[in-house]
């Protein structure tokens, strides 16, 4: 009998896994993708919505249309997975039996976990651009904002795309400069990390870039409370940052059904996953891709893309009874939009820090350095996403494992 493969989540990871599996296994497998809605959001586009550079309706397409013919799509919420029975229970009572399960359900935002954040002032003077509604509402608020204190705050890690809040700061600097009011707006970046970013070399570089743009950096700030009417962020160790407009990246968790599925998730509902094979710790026939996994690399689309090859290869190996490969190296590759039509590119994995040099080889886009070429790369990526990455094609010149030529490695 053809193996039944159920994929939970029709976002970046679920879609590219389904399309790659279909090509790999052909009619020898029944592939079903489950999602609670039919709206596939190009998440990197959310960053540009508040600045009027794109609109929500331009970055959403039907999920179903991104899946190749031969992949089944079921539109329903997931209630829970019964690991021992190899069954998924959907919210409408339907039961799906599986031989292989792929968890590709991403991360959700939990702003209500932070005291006061969703209280008075939420969506009036405190916003997030991590949801379509929030990004659109923030667009209105920014347009009306011409003086005062803008605070960009990350409540705690992990978050999706850890560079996005920094990009927001850079774009805000550009946006207010273009409007001629930059001297009347104070921009402050408030982070729980001990620097601008998670990795040391890039962190120092980004700290310098914030300084150059007169953006204040507040580090090791663990937001405990947001006081909307008073315009205050209060940390657990009782420091305060005043704001007139707060752009907050709320806490993240894994999908709620992970928490309802006994033995599948951790304390935050992310799925404990082998960081090299991408097999779930819970069972040998469960694989995990994208933000849903607890692997120690960034939660980002590029990471998900690079994971795809290993996940599909290992599902095929599992079905054939062959040993899994340690295929994934933690490779992450991020364009950082820096405003004024420039961007920075960083490239790193489990073992190598983001450093300077060129990508993907000695001749290529500059790493850890602002350039117009990187900005064009970032813009071009949206088209590559819909037409190359989701269909599960290998992107020419971009390999899943991190290229080492062209990098200026530093000795530790």
């Amino acid at each position, binding site marked *: 009998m053809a193996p039944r493969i159920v994929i939970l989540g029709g976002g970046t990871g679920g879609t590219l896994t389904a399309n790659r599996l279909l090509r790999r296994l052909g009619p020898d497998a029944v592939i079903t993708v489950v999602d609670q809605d039919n709206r596939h959001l190009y998440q990197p586009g959310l960053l540009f919505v508040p600045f009027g550079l794109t609109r929500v309706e331009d970055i959403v397409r039907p999920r179903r249309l991104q899946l190749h013919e031969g992949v089944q799509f079921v539109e329903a919420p997931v209630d829970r997975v019964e690991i021992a029975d190899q069954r998924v229970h959907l919210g409408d009572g339907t039961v799906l039996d599986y031989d292989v399960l792929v968890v590709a359900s991403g991360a959700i935002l939990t702003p209500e976990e932070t005291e006061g954040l969703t209280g008075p002032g939420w969506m009036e003077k405190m916003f997030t651009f991590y949801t379509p509604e929030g990004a659109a509402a923030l667009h209105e608020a920014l347009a009306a904002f011409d003086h005062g204190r803008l605070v960009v705050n990350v409540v*705690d*890690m*992990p978050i999706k795309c*850890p560079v996005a809040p920094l990009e927001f700061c850079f774009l805000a600097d550009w946006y207010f400069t273009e409007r001629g009011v930059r001297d009347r707006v104070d921009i402050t970046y408030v982070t*729980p*990390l001990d620097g601008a970013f*998670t990795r040391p070399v890039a962190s120092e570089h980004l700290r310098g870039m914030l300084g150059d743009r007169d953006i204040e950096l507040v580090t*090791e700030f*663990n937001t*405990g409370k947001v006081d909307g009417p008073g315009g205050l962020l209060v940390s*657990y*160790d009782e420091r305060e940052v005043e704001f007139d407009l707060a752009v907050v990246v709320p*806490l993240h968790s894994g999908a709620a059904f992970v928490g309802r599925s006994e033995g599948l998730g951790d*304390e*935050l509902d992310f799925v404990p996953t082998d960081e090299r094979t991408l097999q779930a710790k819970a069972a040998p026939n469960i694989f995990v891709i994208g933000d849903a996994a607890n692997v*120690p*690399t*960034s939660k980002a689309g590029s990471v998900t893309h690079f994971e795809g090859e290993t996940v599909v290869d290992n599902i095929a190996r599992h079905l054939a009874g062959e040993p899994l490969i340690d295929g994934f190296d933690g490779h992450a590759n991020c364009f950082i939009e820096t405003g004024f039509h420039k961007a920075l590119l960083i490239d790193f994995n489990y073992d190598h820090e983001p450093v300077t040099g060129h990508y993907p080889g000695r001749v290529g886009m500059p790493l850890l350095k602002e350039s117009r070429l990187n900005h064009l790369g970032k813009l071009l990526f949206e088209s590559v996403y819909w037409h190359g990455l989701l269909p599960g094609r290998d992107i020419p010149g971009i390999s899943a494992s991190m290229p080492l030529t062209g990098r200026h490695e530093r000795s530790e």
Partner: protein
Amino acid sequence: MTTATFAATDVELNDEGFFVHPEQWTEEMASELARREGIDPLTDAHWKVIRFMRAEYEAKGTGPTVRVLGKTSGVSVKELYQLFPKGPAKVAAKIAGIPKPRGCI
């Protein structure tokens, strides 16, 4: 990397003051380590967190972050900050002799 002496035993610490070899740690070292962090004396509440951190590290290979501690240790994040004002996850990890929690990537 530096060598320090706690409870009359030499141990190796990294540049940030975390144990390089968590197996070198013993409970007798904890009160000296705590004093270096400005915590004196160690109460039962501190010990509850320290033992929890050790157990989590031994089970998972990394210490919990503040948020996970707040959800799983039975001590709220607010209380954790009262116990370890300079940052519960980092300071408790130092006193418990385990590496810096790697929650942030």
